């Protein structure tokens, strides 16, 4: 299965050539198709019904068998003919689903069965396009019974979903009702210290002071936070299972859950306190969901820090961390195996991530302290600029190693991205009205000008640098190699570009689709030239033109 890449197309070279990469490529393509087909599924067919068990089984197979799958280091050719056959099958499936949705075709059992078969056929063709049959056979042989176990796990997940959902349902189970009652009582007890005139009604779970009364409903009982913390801790324990001691590490899971619940009680009590003292807007808009996510972030970071720094819960990996890359290479060169697997991220990681993380952290403070109800105006926006600028300055030594030069391609790509960004607006389908203009108009002239100057400077200087460092500089290359900073931008493949662009797009809220397109364009600018500066120049140009558009047309919803 060795491929002669000297004769392969440029697109072939962008695709992953190894088996694990191809398996992730299958997952990525099917995920995109799932997003497209989900709204079409008015009548679930065979493939629709198999989706959840199939996702769980595939994830289990990849997660548990990755080490053995990695042993099959094959340079795989991509089967374009099979891929186009897959695309045609998928188009036929989509046409059938649309026909059912519009009432053109009757959703009979036979029709839905046929539709499901066409879809399953499309999935099989995609699998064979990415991985040839003999490699599938080799993988099944090497992984033994894992495939069967993964399928059993998928089936178990499908069967267990209803009973598990019921356990979380406050109307159907005593634990959830009990949780809501305990949360309400705890909020009342905390508030009794802060607000002497607090009143509460346990019959309908309402609590407040004066004119401001809220209901501690089922969601407020902390069910989301507890679910999120369980997901986060489960993922952590799984990803870093080789570095931590079991069962000791499991002790921290109930501690994290308890902390999350306690912080939720404080959040609701603070919300009532703020509402009673300063009015409902401050409590409901600036504080309500901000505080919830800050609480989750605090618990998740506390859990991570404890897992990384408390020796009682960690295996002895300090030696490996100190040895690092150079040690491993030196060991290999000396002809003896170190017997240790390298752990930890590359030393350059903070330089690439901290500027962007500083912007997110500053945005918490800025929105919580200086946010204006529903307008998008943040009086303390400058904090984001200062935080990112300080982080970039702090890591200037490491960042100088990047090639910041750029030519005409970067600005040209940036101009195209700007055009794509504003086209929906020109058609009248933009992000909608914004209260930002009105909030700015209410400011004194010098304050308004100062705010706009900082906003534009941040959009053109610090934001492009920080976002490009995080998404193209780190994430795209990290998906290919742990030692990402040694990777040339010319080696970026389809999967890293796609994944980093999707992540970049989702950071842009309602404009996620154009955000993904912009991410792909910036990544290709760096990929074609091998220069990081090209992506930054493209991003800065887009933001500069967008700022000019917003200021020129007063179209504040675009910010």
């Amino acid at each position: 299965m060795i491929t002669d890449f000297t004769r392969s197309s440029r697109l072939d070279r962008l695709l992953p050539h190894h088996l694990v990469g191809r398996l992730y490529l299958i997952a990525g393509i099917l995920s995109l198709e799932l997003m497209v087909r989900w709204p079409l599924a008015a009548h679930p067919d065979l493939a629709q019904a198999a989706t959840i068990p199939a996702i769980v089984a595939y994830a289990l197979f990849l997660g548990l068998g990755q080490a053995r799958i990695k042993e099959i280091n094959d340079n795989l050719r991509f089967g374009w003919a099979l891929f186009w056959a897959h695309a045609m099958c998928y188009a036929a499936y989509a046409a059938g689903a649309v026909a059912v949705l519009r009432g053109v075709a009757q959703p009979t059992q036979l029709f839905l069965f046929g539709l499901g078969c066409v879809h399953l056929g499309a999935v099989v063709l995609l699998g064979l396009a990415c991985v040839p049959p003999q490699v599938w056979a080799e993988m099944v042989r090497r992984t033994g019974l894992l495939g069967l176990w993964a399928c059993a796990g998928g089936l178990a997940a499908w069967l267990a979903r209803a009973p598990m959902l019921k356990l979380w349902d406050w109307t159907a189970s005593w634990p959830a009702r009990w949780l809501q009652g305990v949360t309400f009582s705890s909020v009342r007890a905390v508030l009794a210290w802060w607000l002497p005139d607090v009143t509460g009604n346990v019959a309908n779970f309402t609590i407040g002071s004066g004119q401001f009364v809220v209901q501690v409903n089922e969601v407020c009982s902390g069910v989301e936070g507890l679910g999120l913390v369980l997901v986060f801790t489960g993922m952590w324990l799984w990803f870093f299972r080789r570095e931590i001691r079991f069962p000791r590490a499991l002790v921290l899971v109930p501690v994290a859950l308890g902390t999350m619940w306690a912080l939720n009680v404080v959040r609701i009590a603070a919300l009532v306190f703020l509402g009673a003292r300063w009015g409902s807007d401050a409590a409901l808009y600036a504080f309500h969901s901000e505080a919830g996510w800050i609480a989750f972030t605090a618990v998740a970071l506390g859990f991570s820090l404890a897992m990384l720094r408390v020796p009682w819960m960690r295996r002895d990996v300090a030696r490996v961390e100190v040895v690092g890359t150079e040690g491993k290479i030196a060991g290999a060169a000396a002809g003896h195996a170190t017997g240790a697997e390298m752990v930890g991220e590359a030393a350059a990681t903070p330089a690439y991530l901290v500027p962007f993380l500083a912007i997110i952290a500053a945005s918490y403070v800025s929105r919580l302290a200086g946010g204006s109800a529903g307008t998008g105006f943040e009086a303390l926006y400058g904090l984001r600029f200062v935080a990112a600028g300080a982080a970039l300055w702090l890591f200037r030594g490491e960042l100088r190693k990047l090639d910041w030069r750029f030519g005409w391609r970067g600005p040209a790509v940036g101009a195209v991205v700007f055009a794509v960004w504003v086209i929906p607006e020109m058609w009248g389908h933009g992000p909608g009205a914004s209260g930002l203009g009105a909030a700015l108009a209410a400011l004194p002239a010098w304050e308004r000008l100062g705010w706009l100057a900082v906003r534009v400077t941040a959009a053109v200087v610090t934001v492009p640098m920080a976002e490009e460092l995080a998404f193209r500089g780190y994430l795209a290359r990290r998906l290919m190699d742990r030692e990402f900073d040694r990777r040339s931008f010319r080696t970026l493949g389809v999967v890293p570009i796609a994944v980093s662009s999707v992540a970049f797009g989702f950071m842009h809220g309602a404009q996620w689709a154009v955000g993904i397109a912009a991410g792909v364009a910036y990544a290709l600018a760096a990929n074609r030239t091998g220069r990081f500066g090209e992506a930054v120049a493209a991003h800065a140009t887009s933001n500069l033109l967008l700022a000019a558009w917003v200021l020129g047309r007063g179209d504040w919803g675009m910010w």
Partner: protein
Amino acid sequence: MKKNWLRIAVVLSGFAFGVTGVAHAAVLFFPGPEVDPTLAIGALTLVAGTVAVLRARRGK
């Protein structure tokens, strides 16, 4: 080997239970104007990024 499977079972059960909790909450979720989904993405990015920074090897 037995311990490995026990570890996997415990971790995956917790994860699955958490996923159903989030799914359950998503069904109940009150879609009020104060709820901003970008906050969720920001929080998860901040956590994941900070973990990566904390795990970075010191010096080269």
